[in-house]
């Protein structure tokens, strides 16, 4: 078996705040193959973004990566020097943030900001870089790219800014592209356009993509595999079709049930998961989901389940798996 593109093993990332220790990512493992799209789904604060930032090694004080390994092509990123990491960021592993307006420097033109990434990682001459910027902006579908390079971020629309960010991310042909809720700030039409663009780029350059989102519909459209996170832990991992056809973990079921369906009649209230997301500082004993789970018993409140493979390509962290699985 060949080495996966990106492999995270038992990653633990914690934030030492004044109120206590936030267990943002608690012993998670996942992997990404070449050309594959992995969806990471979870509510706000479930540790999706922290996972991505850990991969980039951009966890800052008071946060710390406690243990685990992050292997990029077999090489552990956590033991790399900061200088080495700077060479990897933006070149081998690129990331797109959700808020395109604040992710762009308001005082630099779009052209300068795309150019910056190329300048960091290549030795192209000024002129070559300039034409590369125009080429990139054309690739992400920005009309009149030559003219637009001189514009400032506030002169772009939201969708155009997100396209520019994607242009920056793909400028050095990264092998891994992490998209952190890339369309949350956009309306549905633009969202569709952006994902269409991402799909095109994936097809063309064959990079592995990690898509972080809380939107299951988005995942269904563009991912091969899905990882569901709850309160810092991965609770379920499955191929996208298997997950939608037969969600196993009680939390995943709750999530899928809380999606409104247009064609369902007679249903008055949208089912929701009772209770609230636990505070990451004072997590419950045992399974994090146990206080909200209707299958939970004494054992669930004492022993934390680990992620186990139940079928091929299908992992779940639940002690009651035999009872749930029909």
């Amino acid at each position, binding site marked *: 078996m060949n080495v996966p593109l990106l492999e995270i093993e038992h990653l633990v990332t914690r934030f030492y705040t004044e109120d206590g220790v936030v267990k943002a990512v608690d012993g998670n493992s996942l992997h990404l193959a070449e050309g594959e799209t992995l969806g990471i789904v979870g509510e706000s604060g479930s540790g999706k973004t922290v996972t991505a930032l850990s991969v980039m090694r*951009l966890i800052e004080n008071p946060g710390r990566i406690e243990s685990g390994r992050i292997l990029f092509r077999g090489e552990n990123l956590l033991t790399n020097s900061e200088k080495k990491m*700077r*060479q990897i960021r*933006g070149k081998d592993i690129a*990331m797109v*943030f959700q808020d395109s307006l604040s992710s762009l*420097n308001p*005082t630099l033109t779009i052209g300068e900001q795309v150019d910056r990434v190329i300048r*960091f990682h290549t030795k192209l001459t000024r002129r070559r870089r300039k034409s590369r910027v125009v080429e990139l902006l054309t690739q992400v579908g920005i009309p009149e790219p030559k003219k637009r390079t001189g514009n400032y971020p506030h002169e772009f629309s939201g969708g155009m800014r997100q396209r520019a960010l994607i242009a*920056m991310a793909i400028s050095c042909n990264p092998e891994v592209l992490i998209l952190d809720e890339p369309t949350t700030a956009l309306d549905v039409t633009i969202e569709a356009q952006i994902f269409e663009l991402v799909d095109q780029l994936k097809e063309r350059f064959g990079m592995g993509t990690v898509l972080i989102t809380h939107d299951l519909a988005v995942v269904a459209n563009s991912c091969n595999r899905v990882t569901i996170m709850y309160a810092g832990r991965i609770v379920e991992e499955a191929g996208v079709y298997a997950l939608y056809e037969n969600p196993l973990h009680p939390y995943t079921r709750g999530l899928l049930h809380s999606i409104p369906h247009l064609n369902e009649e007679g249903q008055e209230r949208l089912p929701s998961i009772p209770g609230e997301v636990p505070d990451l500082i004072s997590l419950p004993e045992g399974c994090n989901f146990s206080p909200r789970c209707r299958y939970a018993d004494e054992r669930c409140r004492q022993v934390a389940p680990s992620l186990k493979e139940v079928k091929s390509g299908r992992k779940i962290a639940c002690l009651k798996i035999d009872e749930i699985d029909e």
Partner: protein
Amino acid sequence: MNKNPSEEAKLGIWAHRGLLEEFWHNFKKNKLSLVGGIIVLLYLIIAIFAPLLAPYNPVEQFNAPRGEHNPLPPLSRSAEGYLFLLGSDKFGRDILSRAIYGTRTLLQVAVGSIAVALVLGVWMGAVAGYKKGTWVDELIMRAVDVMLSFPTLVLAIALLGAFGIGKTRIGPFVLSNMVKIMVVIAITYSPRFARVMRGVVLQEMTEDYVDAAKVAGASGGRILTKEVLINTIPPIIVQASLMMATTVLTSSSLSFLGMGLQPPRPSLGLMLNEARDFLFLRAWWYAIVPGVSISLVILGFNLLGDGLRDSLDPRQARRVQQ
């Protein structure tokens, strides 16, 4: 995407309205700040073209006509027949000429000290903000606290007292009196810039574009110099223009107290000091000219600074209004 041509053209104009135009558009709405700007501009013109505008040499002494004594009132003539538009001072020098040259030296000192204070303060603040929470930050900011705990004028007098008045030799460098005053004022004001700068850098460092730059592979130093510093310019400009007003006041005060520029060099503060003796006697105009001049330039810089703050940093202006 499908816009009609005229709309497209309009949008095109909008898109190409540069940052400067944007700024001017906001700035001219506030009439008071325009007044401030005009006052400052007038003073700058006076300072730059002083030799052309002043009717006489500011240190040349004229004799009072027979039976009269200097200082002479406005619109009177000297024994030689020279006209004093704003009167003469106690040595028979033309007050208008001295005020014009005094404005020049005053602005020289103010601009020079702000420039030096910026260079010192901005870097201290930027490094402290960037190294937030480390010993570097602590060291810089505690030094700043110590300096700020002295009243500005007292600190300036103490420093000038330590250096002595007149030319000073520091190692291989010989500082003229004026340069020395600039440096002293700059030292007393740089902590304020450092504080403002640190705050702005702290705020900017939390912006997403900093993370985005890191994700793109930028190093910390590059982020600070290439990404963050340019975004700190507006608040620093505002701070500098507001601080101009106080440096004008400080340098005039130093001159007034005899610690600043030395006679016979024309200085508005010195003129005020000389005029003090005549205030309640018969020469009220003597003090009016430098007094009004100093007040006006301070007013101008304050109005300008307020206007700049409102138009350069609309976020902050909105916060103030709320």
